[in-house]
């Protein structure tokens, strides 16, 4: 048997509402003609049908999950990708500063200036940590 879809469940629920309304109208139109017991039985049917109709709408919503599972995963993956691209682009200035600090260190090493070398190493650490 084919699986019930969310749309079919929604339509089904509409029929339950219509049915409950029809029973209700029948009860109200024949209020005095119906015995107390008959009225109670019909009333219980009416309330139960309303309850089922509402439950079916909630069920219809739960059925949606199966229908969108792949799409949910796709959108979530794209969102993660976007965030990582933002991080990459945002990290560019930091990358430049680190590269610049490394170039400065290279120049300091060539100059054999001890203090410049120490300062440059500190510069790399600073650039990395900002």
């Amino acid at each position, binding site marked *: 048997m084919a699986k019930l879809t969310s749309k079919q469940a929604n339509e089904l629920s509409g029929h339950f509402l219509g049915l409950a309304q029809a029973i*209700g109208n029948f009860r109200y139109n024949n209020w005095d003609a119906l015995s107390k017991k008959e009225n109670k039985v019909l009333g219980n049917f009416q309330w139960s049908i309303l309850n089922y109709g509402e439950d079916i709408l909630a069920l219809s919503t739960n059925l949606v999950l199966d229908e969108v599972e792949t799409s949910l995963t796709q959108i979530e993956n794209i969102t993660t990708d976007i965030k990582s691209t933002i991080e990459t682009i945002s990290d560019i200035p930091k990358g430049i500063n680190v590269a610049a600090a490394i170039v400065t260190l290279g120049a300091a090493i060539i100059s054999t200036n001890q203090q410049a070398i120490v300062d440059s190493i500190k510069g790399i650490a600073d650039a990395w940590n900002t």
Partner: protein
Amino acid sequence: MRQCPFLKFTCILFLFSLMGCVNLEAVSDFSVTSAEALSNYENLSYGFKQHCEERCEFNAIQQSQIKRTLDCDCRTYAQADSVSIKIYNSILGYFTSLGDIAGLDVSGYNLDAVNKPLQEGTFGKVIIQPEQADAYSSISNLLFRASTDVYKRKKIKEYIKEANAPLQLLLDKFSFILGQNLKEELDFKKERLYAFYTELKLNDGLSDFEKVESIASYYDQLLEIDHQQEKLEIYAASLKEIAMAHQELYDKRSALSTDVLKQEMSNYGSALRDMGTAFKKLKE
């Protein structure tokens, strides 16, 4: 005729500078407006579980039951809320990220930090003159900003392309859940009230004053439900508007910075803002 290499270079530079000025305002503004419209979900102040709990309370009143605790089995309804929240978070997350990347400003990026040490010294046999260093610095900064912008634009185009199909489905289902399922739950609530008050009237146990009071109470509740349903309708309509706008972005993804698209996105944005105002009015 011999072409001037300088002219060629200037032309290339000009093209790069144009690309560097890519304006993604349309994407950025639309994403921000969509995220704002979507977040009205948190102002709906109604959900499936709440509906179930209220029904449970109503049934107890209707049957004149006094219980120590209202024992309601609302698991299916709570699950329906969690499905809605899952879809909501997923769509909102996408638009927030799309807005973030489109609005990411790279105009301040420059290579001065790298250029500075180059200007300060002699590199092997190469001696860089100050004017050469300045020219090199300006060109490299321009190319660098342009390439970062082009990269950003290329990625956005890719994301819009990949996201469109799943997003359309999610928006459609989210609209179905709220604009149909949840709204129709309220039709049941209306019917329940109608049944309750009709029975009350037909039972003839009320004084004239009590009858008037109960009818007034019935219409007050009916009006409240109507407002709630209207909110859901507006929200569902805004989801459809977002879907149409994203489809437009997808169709015109190769021309994201054109004025035509900017105008179209601005129209969608205005429609969403109008819906937001109507939604707010109902909330008050």
